[in-house]
């Protein structure tokens, strides 16, 4: 009877309000990494040729998840402006957890690949910093030091438990101080001080993460959903996912 009714009504679709799939694994991570590589390599290899810049931004935006919805017993994660859909059958899911509610939950454990991307960009930025000669334009140092500060702060933020927000902020401040020293050693002036304000703002905003992280663990891998929505919206989305996972 139930089956007949559902086949008459078609497959039930429901959008998970306020939930966005993250680009921490699979094709979206590849797009994110490519965009970063194009930006980094482009600055070095084609400093006067800027059309690569748009490709990088398009890839970056495409890597962001736009929405998640439930279609019957399947969870559909939409990326690349809605053109890329990742389907997870409820039967594949073995665990659901809300990462920021765990006492010792750290993002790196559940998204190690994005940690490796940040580590790669930090190593690259450090290499560029130490090979850059003195006496160049200020912007060239700011770009590299900004990358050092941001990637090291992100790595620290990924290895510190969610509940220790003050430790994360402290780590970002230390990274900013080290960044200032690095700038001083290359320029021997203080003309970069005004530029420290936007770098600090971007870094602190990136580190001060109040999002909810929902992890879906399957045998094939882990999927991460994020939300900045109010608590009741997150709870509603969780309830919808739970209904999908439950036995009929």
């Amino acid at each position, binding site marked *: 009877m139930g089956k007949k009714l559902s086949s008459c009504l078609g497959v039930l679709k429901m959008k998970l309000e306020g939930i966005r799939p993250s680009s921490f694994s699979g094709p979206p991570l590849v797009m994110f990494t490519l965009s970063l590589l194009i930006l980094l390599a482009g600055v070095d290899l084609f400093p006067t040729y800027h059309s690569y810049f748009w490709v990088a931004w398009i890839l970056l935006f495409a890597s962001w998840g736009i929405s998640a919805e439930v279609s019957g017993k399947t969870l559909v994660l939409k990326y690349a402006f809605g053109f890329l859909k990742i389907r997870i059958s409820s*039967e594949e899911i073995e*665990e*659901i*957890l809300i990462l920021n509610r*765990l006492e*010792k939950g*750290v993002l790196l454990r559940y998204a190690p690949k994005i940690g490796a991307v940040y580590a790669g960009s930090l190593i690259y930025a450090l290499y560029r910093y130490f090979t850059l000669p003195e006496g160049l334009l200020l912007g060239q140092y700011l770009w590299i030091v900004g990358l050092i500060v941001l990637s090291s702060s992100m790595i620290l933020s990924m290895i510190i438990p969610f509940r220790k927000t003050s430790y994360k902020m402290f780590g970002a401040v230390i990274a900013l101080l080290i960044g200032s020293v690095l700038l001083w050693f290359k320029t021997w002036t203080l003309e970069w001080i005004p530029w420290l304000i936007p770098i600090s703002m971007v870094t602190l905003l990136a580190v001060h993460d109040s999002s909810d992280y929902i992890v879906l663990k399957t045998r094939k891998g882990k999927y991460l959903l994020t939300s900045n929505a109010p608590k009741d919206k997150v709870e509603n989305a969780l309830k919808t996912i739970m209904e999908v996972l439950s036995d*009929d």
Partner: protein
Amino acid sequence: MIRLPESMERIWTMRAKGMREIEIAESLGISRQAVNKALKEAKAKLFEAFFALAETFSWEIVRVNAEKGFMVARGRCGNKTMRVYAFYIPQRGIRGFFGEEVPELILQHAVELRIVKKPDKKELIKLLER
């Protein structure tokens, strides 16, 4: 209290202990498809049981693992908000505890299902919370 059907529970327990589907099928003399179907149904039933338990007591779910059969939640105990841990134990159903007072039965069960390597209460809580 929820209990998985006997044959389904046997298959789920073997899988939770680390056996592969093909090994379970061979040892029980059934097809691999039958094992796979039983495991899918067992997982759905366990998810449903843990979600229903959390809803009944107004607990806030932190994690539910249907592969090893456990749940971590936040709930009220008197005036305090505490951690609640619940495990599905074969032949007994769901058993739980508040805070870090891990009962021996659950500790032993966690060792059998290879959630922890040795019967260490602190280690078990640490593993559930990371």
